[in-house]
């Protein structure tokens, strides 16, 4: 039986990435923006795994694990920033921090 063509998996990755990017640009709530970042990381990892499956090599899966590490570190720092942001501004609206000092 024929397996799934790599192009279809790549199209899925592209669609998911575009959805994450659109959400990141449209939403102003920081929780949603972090969620969209996770969606985009996930889509990038899907592209790696699809390419790795195409040539039946383990490298794509290794790269996915690296992306997983980056996503975990990013979400830890991002959520800590979010808590500090909420503590400071009493809101989760990213536009509340549009002004800079100094």
């Amino acid at each position: 039986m024929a397996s799934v063509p790599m192009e279809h998996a790549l199209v899925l990755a592209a669609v998911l990435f575009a959805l994450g990017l659109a959400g990141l640009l449209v939403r102003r709530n920081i929780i949603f923006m972090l969620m969209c970042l996770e969606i985009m990381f996930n889509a990038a990892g899907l592209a790696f795994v699809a390419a790795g499956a195409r040539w039946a090599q383990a490298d794509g899966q290794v790269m996915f694990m690296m992306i997983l590490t980056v996503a975990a570190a990013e979400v830890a720092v991002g959520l800590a920033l979010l808590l500090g942001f909420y503590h400071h501004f009493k809101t989760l609206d990213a536009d509340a921090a549009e002004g800079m000092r100094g």
Partner: protein
Amino acid sequence: MNAVFYMASAVAVLTTLLAITRREAVHALLYLIVSLLAVALVFFTLGAPLIAALEVIVYAGAIVILFIFVVMLLNLGNAARTQERVWLPKGAWRAPGALALLLGGLLLYVLKQESRWMPVDRVVDVKEVARALFGPYVLAVEIASVLLLAGLIGAYYLVWRGPIRRPGRRD
């Protein structure tokens, strides 16, 4: 099996679309979990069972739960109980639950078929990934550990309300 891939892809795209358009963060997180489970099934059909398991364990199991912790943390106080009732009315879990059931059905189908049918020409199994990870990529693993340590220290510093004077703080 290709049908499993396409159905899981459709569920992933649909739930991602629903996740980024919800008004309440908790609803979006419910849809995001289903989306990640669907992508895990896609990984399984692409011949990467280890990555499918990691997707469920780390993404759906750790990262999204961290999001839910933070959402809950930001809503303490007297209004929290009514707030939770507003967030999760009786029907809020139905659509994500139905989509997750669909994914579960697909997974059962895959597991039943697997003895006769391979998802791709060759499954890259855990052994092979581990050989690559601790062979040519061992330096990347070390760098990843440093990155996680930096994330840990950074997150700890950012939420620390200690005696350090912060220059940009307006109280």
